[in-house]
């Protein structure tokens, strides 16, 4: 059978001298793998039509047994050339592609995740505030997977987050912020910078991406937020990808 879909390149690897193996996030069919035969031949119709983080129109033959399909045609829609010069943004794009390829199973439709990644890559390709964009993206990614950390109140008693509170707490296992009253009873509660929690609550409460973008953070706050979301990811997705620490720390 032939399928046609929009697809984002998550990973590529050599398959033979002239062919490549490509992992895609498609809009309608989720994560799929294809061979791109003859991709590297000088007159191949595939030359320059796909590379990491491109969004493409993909036509492929489905192979149900081996799991690896065969690409028939590919036309690039968005090459996002900025990643070729904005190396910091490229590191974050690489991490997010890795995250998606680890979290999604093969062949399960995930149009919400596709739209999310397509938007985030567009945003990253502007080359501005790559770390912030990525942190905000993680938050919306958790949301799409059904994990919504709580930042605007105490995750245990529901009490309002006290904006003047200096010592705030965060407990990944309890799903977010914990007030000073509840914290002593929570085993994994860690002290968390209140300003980082307030920014996270702001991002979460923003009604539009533009509104979220207006809430900026300093490099120190970005590090704190990365640490909190990292703990959340470790606990709820059982993931702490090396790509994430490379993108955030180097």
């Amino acid at each position, binding site marked *: 059978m032939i399928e046609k879909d929009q697809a984002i390149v998550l990973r*590529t690897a050599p*398959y033979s001298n002239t062919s490549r193996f490509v992992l895609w996030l498609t809009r309608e069919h989720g994560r799929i793998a294809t061979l791109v035969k003859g991709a590297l031949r000088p007159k191949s119709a595939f030359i320059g039509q796909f590379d*990491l983080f491109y969004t493409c129109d993909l036509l492929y033959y489905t192979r149900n047994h081996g799991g690896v399909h065969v690409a028939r045609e590919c036309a690039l829609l968005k090459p996002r050339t900025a990643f070729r010069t*904005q*190396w910091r943004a*490229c*590191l974050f794009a690489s991490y997010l592609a890795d995250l998606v390829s680890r979290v999604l199973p093969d062949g399960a439709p995930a149009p919400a995740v596709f739209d999310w990644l397509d938007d985030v890559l567009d945003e990253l390709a502007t080359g501005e505030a790559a770390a912030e964009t990525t942190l905000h993206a993680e938050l919306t990614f958790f949301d799409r997977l059904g994990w919504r950390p709580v930042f605007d109140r105490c995750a245990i008693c529901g009490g309002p987050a006290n904006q003047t509170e200096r010592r705030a707490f965060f407990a990944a296992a309890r799903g977010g912020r914990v007030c000073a009253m509840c914290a002593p009873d929570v085993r994994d509660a860690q002290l968390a910078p209140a300003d980082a929690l307030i920014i996270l609550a702001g991002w979460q409460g923003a009604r539009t991406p533009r509104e979220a973008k207006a809430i900026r953070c300093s490099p120190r706050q970005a590090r704190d937020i990365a640490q909190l979301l990292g703990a959340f990811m470790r606990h709820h997705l059982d993931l702490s990808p090396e790509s994430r620490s490379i993108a955030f720390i*180097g």
Partner: protein
Amino acid sequence: MLEPLEPLIHALARLPGIGRRTAERIALRLARDRSRSMARELTAALQGLETNIICCSRCGAITTTAADPCALCTDPRRVTDLLCVVEDPSDIETIERSGAFRGRYHALMGKLSPMRGEGSRHLGVENLRRRIEEEGFTEVILALNTDVESDATAAFLREILAPLDVKITRLATGLPAGSGIAYSDPVTLSAALRGRRPM
């Protein structure tokens, strides 16, 4: 039936370009060779590799423990003020075969690729910087691949090396030999246009 061959199949399947199927075929072929000559030859070659073959401590090219730094680093007939930076030692082989370059090399042993577990720390940039300062190169040629991550790596290196007193160049990219405008993609074509030169 393949159970006794499992360790060998597993080891072979870890090699680049060899999948499970191919690994099984190779293992079976070795197992059914009564004379054992194939296995003996392979064992000797692998043992030789383990004890004698290394990457040059200076440039990363494949060499022997007896010749480290390698001939490419020490040959006085080579040009000493040009440094060609590549991603992988195999790129050194390829460029040498072309005969188009007679200077020194430096293999990064990777590129910026978090998804492959490679970040700036893995590239040994300090080493590269030290070589440029100590060996007095006047030009550093970034001979990296042209995929997204390689391009980003080149941008990173340009930023890191900018403070040094050295000219930094990048290999020209353009239409592949034997190809035509009709076959080229927008990314290549715009790079070729930007890189055009007077004739």
